[in-house]
């Protein structure tokens, strides 16, 4: 073998084991994990008055809740919250642990687990979909940043200066405050709400549908090519405003807080970018046209049906008072639902798909005859411009009111209800396609569940009719 063949081999051997790797970290992975863990432990116990935490368990469905928590060196944590009216400070255990990263685990029961209680909250079975194990991200300016990975929630622990602040939760029980009145329609305000967004140069309008049970705003835009600002956001109220999550991303700015303005609207603003939520008299231009679904359901022979009382409860205690009805409509309903001589059980609007005929039926339990009597009023209908127009067309008959005498005699009492249905400006029909759910309240506002522990619910498509003449009135119903 010639010498020249050995030279490359020698060079390869000489340089083969040279250490040319670069140390990106000066510490071992284990040390770095341990350092993160130590930093978190030390920061958790640092503030003498603990932390304020606003936790949105699922910001695609629900608002947020306020917690105050103080971590102690013995592995205990004291906590209070505004999830419900039990605000007493509870002590439980916490752990800083290894999971897929360094995690904070609230390991025994405390207020935060109320959001993981599948037996309560707006959805029996999942509750608020909360979690009690958070992944540690970083510490910045004394705040600790966590991520909840199931719902991708960002959670920030903000140090509190004074423990007196903890009493704040008592004024915000159930995530409510007087600020909610700026967005929650009462019996005197239009149920139509819009959010006007200004990105600094142009304005766009979105319809606002507020769910007071979930403290959640659903946004809808009818504008072609309208900006995508998300489908909605949850709210967490305090005494002066509401923090929202996810923030509204508009014109490069992220708006995360609404506060009332001088006009009585809710305003979020940053520089020349703003979003304003307003009650709107009349049908907003951004209201979606859902009449195709209305026509489809009518063509399938379905009526629009809404329940008022339980059949099984004739003593007058078991009426349905649905939160999806507007407060104004529930007030109207109270006026006609219970009288000395009858109880109103349900209302149904039947529309003939092959003509312009419709009928409105009120099923009553009549105490003088001890039987169910249905009174019927005849209508004509027309569907146009996103609206359903109904016109009174006389007294109808039923099997239990064969001559229409009862309908005639009771017409004056039912006139407010007839006025709702037959307003000349029409009824706005809306559906999100969701199934029908009774939010059942007895007179004391407590929830009533069926034998399985769930609120009554049906898979039928649900919808609402809102009077343009009296926009405080919105009726919730199912197609059945």
């Amino acid at each position, binding site marked *: 073998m010639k010498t020249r063949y050995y030279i490359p081999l020698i060079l390869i051997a000489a340089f083969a084991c040279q250490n040319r790797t670069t140390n990106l970290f000066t510490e071992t992975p284990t040390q770095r994990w341990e350092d993160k863990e130590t930093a978190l432990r030390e920061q958790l116990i640092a503030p003498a008055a603990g932390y304020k935490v606003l936790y949105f368990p699922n910001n695609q469905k629900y608002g947020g809740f306020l917690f105050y928590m103080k971590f102690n060196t013995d592995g205990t944590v004291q906590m209070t919250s505004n999830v419900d009216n039990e605000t007493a400070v509870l002590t439980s255990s916490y752990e800083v642990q290894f999971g897929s990263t360094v995690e904070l685990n*609230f390991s025994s029961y405390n207020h935060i*687990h109320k959001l993981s209680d599948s037996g309560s909250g707006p959805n029996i079975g999942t509750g608020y979909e909360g979690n009690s194990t958070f992944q540690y991200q970083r510490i910045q300016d004394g705040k600790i940043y966590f991520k909840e990975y199931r719902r991708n929630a960002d959670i920030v622990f903000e140090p509190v200066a004074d423990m007196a602040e903890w009493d704040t939760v008592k004024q915000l029980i159930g995530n409510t405050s007087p600020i909610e009145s700026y967005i929650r329609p009462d019996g005197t305000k239009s149920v139509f709400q819009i959010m006007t967004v200004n990105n600094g140069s142009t304005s766009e309008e979105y319809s606002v549908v507020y769910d007071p049970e979930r403290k959640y705003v659903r946004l809808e835009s009818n504008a072609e090519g309208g900006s995508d600002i998300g489908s909605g956001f949850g709210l967490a109220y305090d005494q002066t405003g509401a923090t929202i999550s996810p923030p509204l991303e508009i014109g490069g700015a992220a708006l995360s807080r609404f506060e009332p303005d001088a006009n009585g609207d809710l305003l979020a603003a940053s520089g020349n970018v703003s979003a304003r939520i307003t009650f709107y008299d009349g049908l907003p231009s951004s209201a979606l046209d859902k009449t195709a679904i209305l026509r489809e359901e009518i063509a399938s022979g379905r009526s629009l049906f809404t329940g008022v009382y339980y059949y099984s409860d004739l003593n007058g205690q078991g009426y349905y008072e649905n939160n999806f009805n507007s407060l104004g409509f529930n007030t109207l309903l109270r006026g006609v639902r219970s009288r000395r001589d009858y109880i109103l059980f349900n209302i149904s609007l039947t529309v003939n798909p092959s003509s312009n005929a419709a009928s409105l039926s009120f099923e009553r339990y009549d105490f003088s005859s001890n039987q169910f009597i249905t009174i019927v009023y005849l209508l004509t209908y027309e569907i146009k411009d996103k609206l359903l127009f109904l016109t009174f067309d006389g007294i109808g008959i039923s099997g239990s009111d064969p001559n229409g005498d009862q309908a005639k005699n009771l017409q004056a009492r039912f006139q407010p209800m007839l006025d709702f249905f037959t307003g000349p400006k029409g009824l706005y029909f809306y559906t999100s396609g969701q199934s029908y759910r009774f939010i059942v309240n007895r007179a004391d506002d407590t929830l009533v569940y069926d034998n399985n522990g*769930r609120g009554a619910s049906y898979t039928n498509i649900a919808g609402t009719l809102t009077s343009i003449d009296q926009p405080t009135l919105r009726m919730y119903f199912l197609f059945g």
Partner: protein
Amino acid sequence: MKRDLLISIFGGMLLLSCTNRETALTESQIVTPPAGTTELDTYINSTFTAPYNIGVSYTFNEYEIDIGRTLYPPSIDKVRPALETIRRLWVEPYNAQVGDLIRRISPRLLVLVGGYNYNPSGTITLGVAEAGVKITFFNVNQLDLSNSASLVRFIQTIQHEYTHILNQTKPFPAAYKQITPSGYKSTWYNVREADAREDGFITPYSELNELEDFAEMVATMLTNTKADFDNIINGITSDAAKTALRTKENMVADYFVVEYGIDIYELQKAVTDAIAEIASENAPNPTLTP
């Protein structure tokens, strides 16, 4: 010569190139949490872990539960009463029958969860056994020691799941499945209890398969007095259903005697007596008004 020199140099470099210059391993840097030292941990160790090799997990560990469900840990003050209930209604009655059975055959881990475990069908799972090794108890926070029905619901879990473990160790006769062979169905949750009994099943869940049927029979027998159990059977209208359930009862009793030397009726009395005792001990004191 030159060639030998080059080979020597090359070989020497190869030999030296892999010299071990790493530092020796030192003490582990992984921090392991210290063993529990609370009064509750001491109780668990002396009551379950040391005598029976059974661990108890009562703090929230999402790796021990179904991550798809919304669950929370029990309140600390609810843990010991729940474990005492398990001890008095499961460990002690079995121990009285066969001294070392729980030590020999038992789940290795009991997991306690505070709230309800809802299924998509709307039903509630009271407990889950995994491979005979782990039993999870749900709604520990809702356990009401003064209420016999609440105690029965809670203890039914372990009586049911322990039956599975016993069956995995010693299977019951295949003939059991032939008593009501056509009644098993996956949609058991749509069946009312009264209807299940008229079909020869002690509970709706019994209708899932013969394994659950057998476990439900045992759990029902061990949470009802003999008289109450007889009343359940005698209250059934269908003679065929009564006969089927009595046949199942006899096969269950035979299985316990033959395979484990246990008189299930003595076990039944011990468990139901203990249920009554616990409920009585925890009954609220009547408030005296002057």
